[in-house]
């Protein structure tokens, strides 16, 4: 996270509003989807954050996007403020920081598990259960498939990383061979 301090400041402000409105999950979902949309559409990201374009034009673009997405008024105002303050480039970080704040509030955590093949529902539940047991929080799990890890799994929850992949084990084996006398 490049602009953690800045993102945390905006995230906290929105979090305070979300608590008052009791709409933390809604804001978190909206911000996450908006950040994903910007990441998937570099042209849109450029149109909102490029200082070469006039501020009026960027505000107009944001207003149209908010309108098309059907976001709440508060969320729309927040995104417009972000554009006015020329901070559209840190929207991804703000969304991430906001999710952390919401997770802390709900005693939940966002988890990701990477495996070489698709995990069965039973196995996903088992992974989630194990992660919740380790972190002591309710984990919202996201799965990814990456064949390069060969086998096993890599699970991440916040700063916690559980790496049981074959690829990592082979790397460790290789390093131990190289380091041996």
């Amino acid at each position, binding site marked *: 996270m490049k602009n953690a301090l800045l993102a945390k400041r905006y995230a906290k402000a929105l979090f305070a509003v979300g608590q008052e409105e009791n709409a933390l999950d809604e804001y978190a979902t909206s911000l996450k989807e908006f950040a994903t949309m910007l990441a998937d559409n570099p042209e849109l990201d450029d149109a909102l954050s490029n200082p070469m374009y006039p501020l009026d034009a960027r505000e107009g673009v944001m207003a149209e996007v908010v309108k098309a997405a059907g976001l709440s008024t508060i969320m729309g105002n927040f995104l417009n403020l972000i554009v006015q303050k020329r901070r559209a480039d840190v929207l991804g970080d703000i969304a991430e920081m906001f999710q952390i704040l919401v997770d802390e509030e709900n005693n939940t955590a966002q988890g990701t598990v990477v495996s070489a093949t698709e995990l069965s529902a039973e196995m996903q539940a088992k992974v989630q259960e194990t992660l919740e047991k380790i972190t002591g929080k309710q984990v919202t799990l996201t799965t990814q498939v990456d064949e390069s890890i060969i086998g096993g799994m890599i699970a991440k929850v916040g700063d916690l990383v*559980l790496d049981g992949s074959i690829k990592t084990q082979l790397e460790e084996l290789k390093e131990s061979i190289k380091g041996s006398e």
Partner: protein
Amino acid sequence: MRKDVNWSKLGLSALAVMAVVGVAALAYASADAHAGGGDGLLGIPDHKWKDLGWRAMNFAALMIILIKFLKKPIVDGLRGRRQGIKEEFDSLEAQRSESEAQYQEYAGRLSGLDAELQEMVAKAVAQGEVEKARIIAEANDAADQIKRQAEMAVANAVAEAKVKLKNEVADQATVMAEAIIKSNLTADDQGALVGSYLAKVGGAA
């Protein structure tokens, strides 16, 4: 044996003789004239004797005058000349003595030159030996250093080659293991791997 001649006395004697002769001739001539004689003494007419007397007296007077006025300068000049010649002789004598002394000195040095030359040659040979020993020692040191450096370079190269070989073996072993695992890993194995890892980390928690 050289006999010094007193020229002044001799000159004065000659002048005295001539003056006596002149006076005698004049006396004789005037006595003879008073006597009214014809031919004079020795058949020489009287006026001839008189003339001789005058000439002798004239010459004597001239010589007296010359001696009176020229004696001192001539004597001084001759004395100076003699003194100069004497000094020149002394100088030449001193030069001769000096040259002889130098000759003796050079002759002495020349006679000792062989020994000196031999000593110089011996010194040069000794210095050459010392220099030779020093050069050989330095060359030996340099050779030892080069040898040590070469040994270190070889050791480093061997160590580097070992590390490189070990790394290549590790890389290849990993690649081979990865290929073998990929080709043999089934879906059940994948599930078993995840399950065993969860059991491991879950148990630890």
